[in-house]
Each structure stands twice: as structure tokens, then as C-alpha cells.
């Protein structure tokens, strides 16, 4: 299959591209972002400052960026993939050297207008690079052990750098995103089963290393895991966030306390009420109905993206869409699981809702790439 075969189906003009733009997806993304504005307004005690207004501006800028990316041919992005990956690696190495320290971890590079979190950008770059790799690779070789080594190295390198920061959550998400692309590319099931077993072994090793000289995680990370396993062991100490988050979540009931009526978040039970724990405020104020509605919106976004992937005959575009969709899915699923006490507190924001410029920027770039793949996709005649 060559590109010439696909060219017939491609939109040439800007108008034609806009016609094929996935407007429904943009609408869904905007709807979720609006939920975010509303919640940021609420946790600020009914004020646009300091979070909601700034988030709106960022989102508007993000939409513009997304449109711009979507209008550029996916071919260009495929060409850019290796560069993006290498650039991401360089940035990750850079924060290691002179990144600023926030919340006890080195994660940021200050670009002036926004603080860039290279590990976030890496999530995209890794997916792009892997998609490019499998687009290039002969299908027959996909599951051969030798050809597995390059992608594994591509995943392991940034993971190691992110772990060093230390940011366990992002590292795991990077790995998961990469694994999804490999899975979609058709890597044999057996490898995944083996990897799962190895992962379990690694967890055991990590836990066993605690207290020894070669301890693999920071103490607070161990405490988080420990408390996650048994929050009641330290209800006012490290388990505090999980316990309070669950209380806030549960006290919302079926319909919630009403907009701006939540008590838990406003009284600063949750120090990161406007970032990682914003979902609890939504749950407290809008109840089961509200939290299910947000989950529904996310599900629709995943569904639309998956549909786009399935209808895409361009292998790079489809793999990238699938990988980015999975990354997005992991984002909200881990955050929701975390605030509901199903996952340890790892510091993953709720996508499009939590306050934060870096995450917003990265998400909008991701949606721009998905849109670019969608707009320029050669449709599949199934």
C-alpha cells in the first residue's frame, strides 16, 4: 500500500478539511471543559479568579492550537514523530538538570506563558513515535523478538527519566500508552501476558526494596501505596486525602448538595481541590447524576475517537489515534479511580477539568493530532 493509493480520498482545500473536521468531538471536549470552568468557579468560592477565568483563556488558546494542528496534513506529523520524541527526551533530560522544583518533584520548565511539563508532552511524542515505527515496520515482523526491542527501548527510556523525577503516575501512564500502541499494532498476546507477570514481579521487587539501600521509590510514594491499601491505618495522616475525598464524594448522594453548596472541598479538606481532587467537588455538589454525566461525556469522547480510528485506513493515523485515545482514557480513569479510593494517589489530573496549563496544552495538542488523522484519513472500505 502506498500513499498514492490513498490520495484520491484526501481533502485538498481548507473548506473540505473543515467539512471533514470531527465537530462532534470538539463539542464533547468543549462540554467537558465547561464542566471544568464551572467547578473551578465553585471551588474558588464563587469567583472567576483565580482559576476559572484563566482556565477559559487557556482552553480558548488550546482550541485554536487544536484547529491549527488538525488542518496540517497527518503526513507532516508522521514526519515529525521522531523529532518530537527526541525533543521530548531532551526536555526530560533538561528538567533533570535545571527544572524548577514544584511540590517536591522536579517536573516543570518555565516557558514564560505556561509551565511545560515535559513528561506530559512525552505521552504524545511516545505514541507518535511508536505509531511511526509500526507504520514503517513490515507487518510480518511485528511480533518478532528482535523487532520488539526498539519500541521497548523507546518506552523504557522516557519512563526511566520520569521515574527519576520522581513521578510514578506519569511513568506508568507512559508505559500503558506505549503498550496500547503495541497492542493495536498487533504484537502477540503472549508478550502482554508475559509483561503482566513481569510487572507483578516488579511490584513485588519495588515493595521489597523498601528500607534497603537500593530503595526504588521515595518514602512518600510507599506511604501512598500503603495507605491506599488500607486508608483507615492513618485517617488523619497520609490516608487523609483518600478518606476525605471519599467522604466528599459519598456525601453528594444521588443529586448532590447543589452548585456551590459543597462543604468538604470549600473548607479545604482537600489541598488540591482545584487540580487533582476537583472531581470530588463535582461529585459532592452534583451527586451521582453529575459524576455519571461526566463519566458519560468521557465515554463518548473515547467512543468517537475509537470510531475515528476504526474508520482510518492510514496505519500511522489509526495507531496514533488509538494510542492517544488510550492515553486520554488512562488520564480520567486513573484520576477518578484515585479520588474514589480505587487507585493510589498518584497525582494525575482530571483531563480538561483540573486547573493546569500544561495538561490543557498537551491534551489539546493530542486532540489536534487525532483530528488531523481524522480529517486526512483515507476511509476504509470495509
Amino acid at each position: 500500500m502506498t500513499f498514492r493509493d490513498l490520495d484520491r480520498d484526501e481533502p485538498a482545500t481548507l473548506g473540505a478539511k473543515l467539512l471533514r473536521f470531527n465537530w462532534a468531538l470538539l463539542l464533547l471536549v468543549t462540554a467537558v471543559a465547561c464542566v471544568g470552568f464551572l467547578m473551578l468557579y465553585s471551588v474558588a468560592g464563587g469567583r472567576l479568579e483565580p482559576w476559572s477565568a484563566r482556565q477559559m483563556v487557556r482552553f480558548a488558546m488550546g482550541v485554536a492550537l487544536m484547529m491549527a494542528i488538525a488542518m496540517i496534513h497527518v503526513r507532516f506529523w508522521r514526519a515529525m514523530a521522531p523529532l518530537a520524541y527526541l525533543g521530548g527526551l531532551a526536555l526530560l533530560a533538561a528538567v533533570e538538570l535545571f527544572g524548577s522544583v514544584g511540590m517536591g518533584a522536579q517536573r516543570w520548565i518555565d516557558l514564560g506563558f505556561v509551565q511545560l511539563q515535559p513528561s506530559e508532552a512525552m505521552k504524545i511524542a511516545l505514541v507518535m513515535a511508536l505509531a511511526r515505527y509500526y507504520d514503517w515496520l513490515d507487518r510480518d515482523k511485528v511480533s518478532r523478538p528482535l523487532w520488539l526491542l526498539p519500541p521497548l527501548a523507546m518506552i523504557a527510556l522516557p519512563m526511566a527519566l520520569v521515574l527519576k523525577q520522581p513521578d510514578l503516575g506519569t511513568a506508568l501512564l507512559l508505559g500503558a500508552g506505549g503498550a496500547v500502541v503495541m497492542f493495536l499494532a498487533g504484537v502477540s498476546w503472549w508478550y502482554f501476558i508475559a509483561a503482566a507477570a513481569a510487572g507483578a514481579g516488579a511490584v513485588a521487587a519495588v515493595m521489597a526494596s523498601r528500607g534497603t539501600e537500593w530503595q526504588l521509590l521515595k518514602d512518600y510514594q510507599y506511604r501512598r501505596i500503603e495507605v491506599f491499601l488500607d486508608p483507615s491505618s492513618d485517617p488523619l495522616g497520609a490516608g487523609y486525602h483518600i478518606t476525605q475525598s471519599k467522604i466528599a464524594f459519598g456525601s453528594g448522594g444521588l443529586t448532590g448538595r447543589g452548585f456551590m453548596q459543597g462543604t468538604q472541598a470549600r473548607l479545604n479538606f482537600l489541598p488540591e481541590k482545584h487540580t487533582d481532587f476537583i472531581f470530588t467537588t463535582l461529585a459532592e455538589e452534583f451527586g451521582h447524576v453529575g459524576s455519571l454525566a461526566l463519566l458519560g461525556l468521557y465515554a463518548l469522547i473515547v467512543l468517537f475517537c475509537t470510531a475515528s480510528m476504526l474508520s482510518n485506513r492510514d496505519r500511522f493515523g489509526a495507531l496514533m489515534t488509538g494510542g492517544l485515545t488510550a492515553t486520554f482514557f488512562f488520564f480520567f480513569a486513573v484520576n477518578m479511580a484515585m479520588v474514589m479510593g480505587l487507585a493510589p494517589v498518584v497525582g494525575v489530573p482530571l483531563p480538561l477539568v483540573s486547573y493546569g496549563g500544561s495538561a490543557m496544552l498537551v491534551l489539546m495538542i493530542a486532540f489536534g493530532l487525532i483530528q488531523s488523522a481524522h480529517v486526512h484519513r483515507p476511509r476504509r472500505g470495509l
Partner: protein
Amino acid sequence: MSARRDAGALTRRGLVLLGAQGALMGVLALRMRQLQIADAERFRLMAEENRVNIRLIPPARGRIFDREGRPLAVNRQNYRVAIVREGTDDPEETLARLARLIDIPPRAREKALRELRAKPAFVPVAVAEHLTWEEFARVNANAPALPGVEVEAGLTRFYPQGELTAHVVGYVGRVSERELKEDGGRTPLYQIPDFQIGKSGVELKAEEILRGEAGVSRIEVNALGRVIREFEREEGKPGDDLQLTVDLELQRYAMERMKDESAAACVLDLTTGDVAALASAPGFDPNKFVFGISSKEWKALLDDPHRPLSNKTVSGQYPPGSTFKMVVALAALEAGALDPAERVFCNGRYKLGTSWFHCWRRGGHGHVDLHQSLAQSCDVFYYEIARRVGVEAIADMARRLGLGQAPPLPLPAVRSGLIPDKAWKRRAHKRAWQIGDTLNAGIGQGYVLATPIQLAVMTARIATGRQVTPRLVRARAGLPLPAPEFAPLGVSAAHLALVRGGMFGVVNDARGTARKARIAQEGMEMAGKTGTSQVRRITAAERAAGVIRNADLPWERRDHALFVCFAPYRAPRYAVSVVVEHGGGGSTAAAPIARDLMMRALFGPEPPITAYPPDERRRIEEERLRPPAPRPERPQSDRA
């Protein structure tokens, strides 16, 4: 492998992935259901029980200093003793032991016991406040024998100058029920037990500047309110310090000079409008209000005929009497109703229709011009020119000179006095204005009322020809406020000079009414004007029998004595006004006080003895030999 087969594989994998994602989302939804439906009741209860409380930390109140930086209002440590019921097996016994160490009145003991029984076991109940350092140390030393006793240190207000600046600085007190209700819960600081807010004076009017912002301590409490732990503590922002324009030493001198009188004195700096002294005698000890005043003391203050609680400088309204004559003269000169060279004949009385208006000097002054009319304070002259120029022009001039309106001072109860005109009388008395009213206004009697600070402003404006406006605050938080610029009055300089010349005559002419109060040093000469305002009506019968001398009248029916002045005559720097309630004549009761204050303002604490007129020097020398008055009694905790 064909493209189609490959695409089929990707679709399969994609659908598997979608299925997995769907399953995970299903788990999330189930978890939501579990938390928000099944366990909602339990969590709602926990949310109620397990609340974060915000405890406010009161900010340190801004201090108040005089113009030289001497403290007028400061904060000092206040040691309190409280008992926590759960800390002791027998609260009554603990209280009894405590009472052996420090003085606790029986009433306070009963109250504490009642509160101890009523409140939750862990709530500290205040037993005694304002402990001295010794008492505090004694309680601490005996701590092992006093289970459940807690000692806390807080800040409380103290006024080191006592009654000297009580009216200006004011005092603070606890938030009253009414203030709480009016506030409607908007000010969280009001909820702090024993929080003190300004109740009077600058303390009241500059409350927002002085208060600062509360700090917050976030604590977790359980359903009973017991503190479990403190999350974070954010110290408050202390209030801004204020520096007043008042000069403490001048103020002290004014208060001591007037201590037996019911009187008021104001000293204004003419270049800046700074109020260098604002003394209202008698004073009161503001510390009594902070520490809690007994009802007996309170009643005594209220019943005192000298009204110590009133700030007479801004709240006392008096007929200005002859000090108003400058206003009338300027109004007539500006309206062209009076020629500067013109003479009016005074035979001691003035006829209007069928009634007579009298001059204070029974025999009359003979032919008087403007200069003599001021220097000798001839009433007939002013009956005549007031009638000519009319009340509206007089009222207009009075307002230009600052009368009839409240000066913009940060003090409570700043009164505006009264400058009557025709519209006012129709409104207030439902009667038409009479020419007789104009004549009375012409000598500052009748309806005309002015406060001592207004008289000082009037004098300042005549002395400078500018719209001098008084100010009381010199600097905020160490930053000096910009010095004000005063616009010209718009009154002819020649007319002002004529009036000032007359005022110079009052003090320096051989026949001036206040010759005894002159300043003898060349270049420092003073100009002024006496005033004596009647508080009773002199009937025709009394006049026939001879007006009763003030000394023979009961105090409250005697005339008010007034004096206004500025100096140095040729380059005015200060204006002074003095009102002595029921003091008799302005020249004898008020003028010497004003002159002595002026001397201190001009020369500092020890004016050269040669600057006093020769017949005054002995009195001044005796005054200097006298030991200084004892400092005001300090409250208990000052021993700390």
C-alpha cells in the same frame, strides 16, 4: 499479509481495547454508585461530623503616635487565666486554690463556675484577665497544684497618656450586641471572644486602617468541637500605625492649663493645617473603658456637669460672640457696605424700631472706625454694618471661613455648628427672618453657633487668606501623607489686612480688650479677638438695675469665654482657639490660656520669660517652679 487482513486485525484489537475501556468505565460507574447511593448516608454523616474549623487569629492593632512619635495608643501583653473542666477532677477546688494566688472577685468566681458547668468539658473558661507579670508568674510556678488551669497571653490596648489624648485617640472596647447585629456576620473577627474595636475618637473612625487582617488557623474538629489538629496557620496582617498631627507636649500643657475648667482649646499649624493640639477638658482615662469600667464610675462621668466624655473641640457648639465680628466686617467690606475709613458713633445702644440693642460698654465707645471696632469690640458698630450688609452676605462669608460645616476630621460627633440664614429660619422655626435676628448674628449671638475647631479654622483662614483645612493624621504605616495645598479664599487681601490689623489692635493697642495676653517679643506679636457669649437673656429690668456680674451668678449661667488668635502677626504660623465654658469674659478667662499655648507652639516647652508682658512674668515663673502634675494613674497590668 494483505492490507485488508492487517486492517481487520487492527479493528479487532481496537474493539478489544474499547471493550476493556468500557469494562473499566463500568467499574468506575459501579464504584460511584456504591459511594453515592449505597453509602451516601454514612458519608454524609461523616461529612457533618468531621469538619474543618477555621479559627481566626486576631491581628495586632495598629498603634497611634503623636507627631514626634511618642506613643498614644499601644498594645500590651494581657495574661489571662482559664480553667478547662476536663483537666481537673474538682473544678471548684482548683478555682479556690487559684483565688488564693490571684485576686478573683466573688462575682467572677460564681460566673466562672456557672460557665464551667454549662460548657463542654474541654472548653477553656476565662477566670481572670489583665494579670500582672507577678501574678502570671505565681500561677505558672504553682501549675502542678492547679490541674486544668491554662494561662494565655493576648494583646490588649493601652493608652500611656491616659486622659491627655482621650478625646482625640478615643478608646476600644468589646463588640457590642448591637454592633454584632448591624454587622450581620460580615466581619468574622467580631466572633472572636473579647475582640476589641474602636468605640470613640480616631480609634473608631480609623478602625479599618488600625484593625489589620485576621490570620487563620485551620483546625480539624470532631462533632463536639474538640480540636484534633492544626493543618496550617496563616498569620494575620497587623493594622497600620497612625501618626497624628497632635503634639503631645502641647496637648499636655493645654490639658493641665485647663484642668479645673470645662474648656476646649485647638492649635492649628497654618502651613499644613495640622492640628497640633485638640484639648477638651476635663478628660477621662480611656484605659478604664478597655479594662471594663464600673457602673459607678460610668455614672459619675455621665453626671459630671463639665461633661468629661464630650470632645468639646469638635462637638461643643457655642455662640461665637464677638469672635464672629471678623466675619461680619469682612462680609461688609467685600459687599462694599462699609468704607474702611468710615466711623460709626456708639453711645452704648442701638435702636431698631421700638427695641434697643445694647453695647457691652454701657457708656458707649464714641466714634469708632473698623480698627477700633475690633480692638475694643464695639457692638453698636456691628449692629449697624450687619443691618447694612444683611444676613445672607454674612452667612456666605461665614461659610467661606469654614463655619457652618463639619471639618473633615477622623473623629466621631464632629458637629457643623449653625450659620443661620433666611431659608434656615423658615425651615427650622417656620417663621420669617427679622432684622433683629441679623443684628444678633452681627455680634455672634442669637442663632449662630460654632465649635472651637471651627473658630480655629476661621482664624487660620483670616490669617493666611487661604482655605486652610485641619488634618489630624500625619502619616500612615510610617509613610507621611502628602502636605495639603490650600487654595486662596478669594477675599480681597486689602480687606483681610484691615481685619487682621484690627485683631492686632485687640491684643496690642493700649485700649485693646486683650492687652494682657499680648506677646512682648518683637517679631512674634500676636493678633486675636476676644468673645464673650451670653447663655442667658438679660432682661430690661436687670439691665436697669445693673447687669449682674458673672462672678455672682451660678456657674452654669455665666457667660462663655472665647478667644481666637494667630501669631506671629507678620508671618502667621499658628492659629489658636480657646473656649472656656461659663468662664466669664473672653479677655480674662480665655485669652491668657490661648496666649500661653501660642507661646509653647512658637517657642517650645520653655518660652523666654521676656516674651511675656511684664505683669504676667511672675505668674509664669511661679507656674514653672511648681512640680509637674502627677502622671495619670496607670492600670494594674502596667506593673508588668
